């Protein structure tokens, strides 16, 4: 016992003294679920590395090289906090970024508040991170649950459908999305009613019985918020059972290549979805991003790539905006910070720390045995957020 304890302690001591900042470098910390969710994080990492290379090739941050230290969180909040602690206490990073799962984003944001360090949440979708549990130290890049729910509700309101049924994974992400969608749709269409709901556990949907239960309620339209493996089961089972026939379906995130591509020739047609139609976006900024990405990786970007790329662009922008990299100055610089992303310029709002990154809404279709998005429209994030004054009221007094 003595030996082992001694070994463990000395290993810790060695580790603690290892890293010291080199001159001419700016280090930032980044955390994501690399081992647990590689489907998202691999393209995300590629997007991040592309942006990093571009920034450093162009001279870095005022002549200093930008260095990103990435850590895996294993999709567990506890491990994410250990990693954050290592980055801040040992590696001495000037800010933290990253995150995919909402609960990890919230854990990191609370850590940022406690340790007084800036945290730029990349992907977490929960509204709580900027509103009900928002704090001074946390900013969020990704188009939120509330924003995408409003975008989809706007399209859903145009449908004749009156009776709606919902299917969403049984955790905060699904619950808050369905609630936001209901509220936004009912505001536009007081005549709709929600007549059935199903809450399968994440990654464990028993698609047959779930769809049967929805079908039995005879809704005009279905709202879906399942994704990844659950989505595929749902689609395959629903296609076979004809549950989606003659029904409108509004489906959250389904147009993202991460979730659409696995559906291949079983892609249902005409679903209203949010997503990332990289093949159909004709803006100059996106084309430049697409060309650079394909040149670097010989692969097409996923939505994760855009998030990773834009996260690093945000980091570079805030580091460039102030000479003093203390947390107080960085937070001041983050407010109203303008960043160029592949989706165009975005602003991190001063009042609620949410970026105005928008999203693409369109319909699913099949082409050459693959799923794509058609009739796409880019919806600007700013149009689907509450005004800054209203949003500020949603945040706790700090």
């Amino acid at each position, binding site marked *: *016992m003595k030996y*082992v*304890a*001694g070994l*463990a*302690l000395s*290993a*810790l*001591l060695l580790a*603690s*003294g290892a890293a010291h900042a080199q001159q001419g470098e700016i280090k930032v910390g980044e955390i994501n679920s*690399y*081992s647990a969710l*590689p*489907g998202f994080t*691999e393209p995300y990492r590629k997007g991040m590395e592309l942006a990093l290379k571009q920034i450093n090739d162009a001279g870095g941050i005022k002549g200093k090289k930008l260095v990103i230290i990435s*850590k*895996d969180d*294993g999709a*567990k*909040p*506890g491990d994410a*906090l*250990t990693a954050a*602690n*290592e980055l801040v*206490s*040992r590696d001495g990073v000037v800010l933290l970024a990253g995150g995919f799962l909402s*609960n990890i984003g*919230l*854990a990191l944001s*609370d850590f940022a508040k*406690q340790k007084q360090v800036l945290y730029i949440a990349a992907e977490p979708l*929960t509204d709580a991170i900027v509103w009900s*549990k928002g704090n001074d130290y946390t900013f969020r890049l990704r188009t939120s649950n509330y924003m995408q729910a409003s975008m989809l509700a706007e399209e859903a309101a145009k449908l004749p459908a009156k009776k709606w049924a919902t299917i969403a994974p*049984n*955790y*905060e992400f699904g*619950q808050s999305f369905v609630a936001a969608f209901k509220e936004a749709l009912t505001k536009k269409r007081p005549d709709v009613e929600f007549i059935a*709901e199903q*809450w399968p556990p994440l*990654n*464990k949907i*028993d*698609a*047959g*019985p779930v769809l*049967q*239960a929805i*079908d*039995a309620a005879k809704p005009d339209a279905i709202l879906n918020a399942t994704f*990844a*493996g659950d989505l*595929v*089961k749902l689609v*395959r*089972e629903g296609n*076979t*059972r004809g549950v989606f026939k003659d029904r409108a379906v509004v489906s959250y995130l389904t147009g993202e290549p991460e979730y659409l591509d*696995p559906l291949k020739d079983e892609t249902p047609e005409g679903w209203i979805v949010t997503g990332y139609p990289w093949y159909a976006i004709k803006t100059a900024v996106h084309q430049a991003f697409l060309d650079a990405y394909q040149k670097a990786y010989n692969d097409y970007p996923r939505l994760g790539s855009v998030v990773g790329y834009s996260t690093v662009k945000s980091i570079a922008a805030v580091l460039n905006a102030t000479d003093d990299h203390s947390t107080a100055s960085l937070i001041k610089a983050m407010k109203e910070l303008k960043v160029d992303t592949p989706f165009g310029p975005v602003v991190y709002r001063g009042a609620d720390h949410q970026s105005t990154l928008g999203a693409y809404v369109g319909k699913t279709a099949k082409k050459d045995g693959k799923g794509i998005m058609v009739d796409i429209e880019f919806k600007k994030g700013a149009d689907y957020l509450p005004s800054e004054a209203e949003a500020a009221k949603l945040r706790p007094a700090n």
Partner: protein
Amino acid sequence: MELLFVQALSGLASAASLFLVASGLSIIFGVTRIVNFAHGAFYMLGAYVAYTLTSRFAGPLGFWGGLLVASLIVAALGALMEMVLLRRIYQAPELFQLLATFGVTLMVQDLVVVIWGADDLLGPRAPGFTGAFSLFGRNIPTYDLLLIALGPAVLGLLWLLFHRTRWGVLVRAATQDRDMVACLGVNQKWLFTSVFALGVFLAALGGALQIPRTTVTHYMDLSIIVEVFVVVVIGGLGSVTGAFVAAVLVSELNALGILALPKISLVAVFLVMAVVLVVRPFGLFGKAERAPRSSAGTSFRPWKPMTSIERIGVALIVALAALLPLFAGNYALSVGSEILVFVLFAASLHFMMTVGGLASFGHAAYFGLGAYGAAFAIKFLGAPMGVALLIGPLFGLAGAVISGWFCVRLSGVYFAMLTLAFAQIIWSVAFQWVEVTGGDNGILGIWPSRWASSPEGFFWLTLAIVAVSVALLRVLVFSPFGFGLRATRDNTLRADAIGIDRKSVQWAAFIVSGTFAGLAGALFAFLKGSVFPETLGIPISVDGLVMVLLGGIETVSGAVVGAIFYKALAIWLMSQTDLSKLVLGAIIVLLVVASPKGIVGFIEQIRHRRPPSPNGAGSSAARADASDALGIAKMKVAE
């Protein structure tokens, strides 16, 4: 009514896939007594290999042939694992094989991503079973019908195999009394290997059959393994018919239950299991277990309190650890605190598992209750940290009082699974009761009071609490209560005969253990500053088991060493590589093979191999060995 009927049909289709995997697990456990944690990994491998084969070879022959060949390939892999890994450790304490299969599971999770890539893979549909047929105006996939037919067909084939072949007779004999089978001259090695291969074949087939329904992903194993365990336990361990009935029961309750309660899926199976085990302690079709070959924690060398020299040594180590803040950085200190928290958690599990012989698969319940208790004290009562650190363990205590009362009526794996059921029910309450617990978004802002908020302060606080608690647990081990507890572990009948009330002694041990786990959980809440349902989750329970087993289940201080070793390694690997599971799994497998008695067991073995020293320590050890051998001989006679 029609809806109910159609819904029930869908439930039967789900039951069939569940049954295939569960029957394999049940057969393996029945004969080899191995709790095969890697069963889900083989299920996943079956799906991945079948994906590769069916994508390459189109057509009905390619598809069905592909499924079969894939299952055979994976079965061969399973047999290989049994031969090179498990065969070496059949003599190790029961449950130790769990550790080996857990290591394999970790490795497979990373390996499939390395081999097949990170994307979800969509296999082809089954040729000839792509459509649906209409019943009461509702469409039912023809593939569902195939699955519904397949379930009873496999059940029938297994019955024929077990009742009409010589091999089957041997397997049934071994399930009842494998020592007797060995005495009759049956080659156990090949019997075990073939049974293992058959079980893995069924798991892989279950996975391969999922291809037409879903995507193949690297987390498929997690989504099924626990459910399969539950099905096996509800049915009764070793009973294939039981597994079938249980699979139907669970799937039907789920399919029909969601009509009334759409959120029930999360917890349905565990509720069923808890009810079944409380009413029928050995599952629906299970029989009372024979006294196990050697229960967890039967010591190969009698435990002794530390000598005064050893006590001084430990005090020195604690004093040295207390000096750590003088030269270590903040990160090292917080990692140190985290390791200490898990030392206490593992020590609390050790008390129940090794001293009491009660292996718990749901010990995270009390850890998590402690964490939530502390968080509630801060959030709802505005209590200071000191009070919260008292309320946390009280939550653990309360949880242990209730679930312990039910659990101690059971023994062995049934006991373990009932603890798991309680843990999962508590987990789902924390997960669902958003108004109070915040759901999966957790409770934030549980930071230590100012006097303990610095990393040094918190480290010292944790060190003090953990050192005192572990010492207390150790005192209990060598107290009359501890001896009584060990008596109930080693021989229920004799313990009864000398007037020890087994249930109340074990219940008390359960409560002690839960309380200390709650204390660890409360410390964890303040260390992390937030509480999430993951603190109640299965991975934490498994971590605890791994720590105890790795340290050496037959030793007194194994849990402490195992926790330090495992936690430090896990944190370090996590920080160094994205393939941490692969490396960690490989290290566990190597350790299991190298020292089946765990780290501390290994060290003790080396210590006692030294030539006798003048003060007589060696000769007393030799005497101990002799009396131990005598004990084993007596046990054999008793059997």
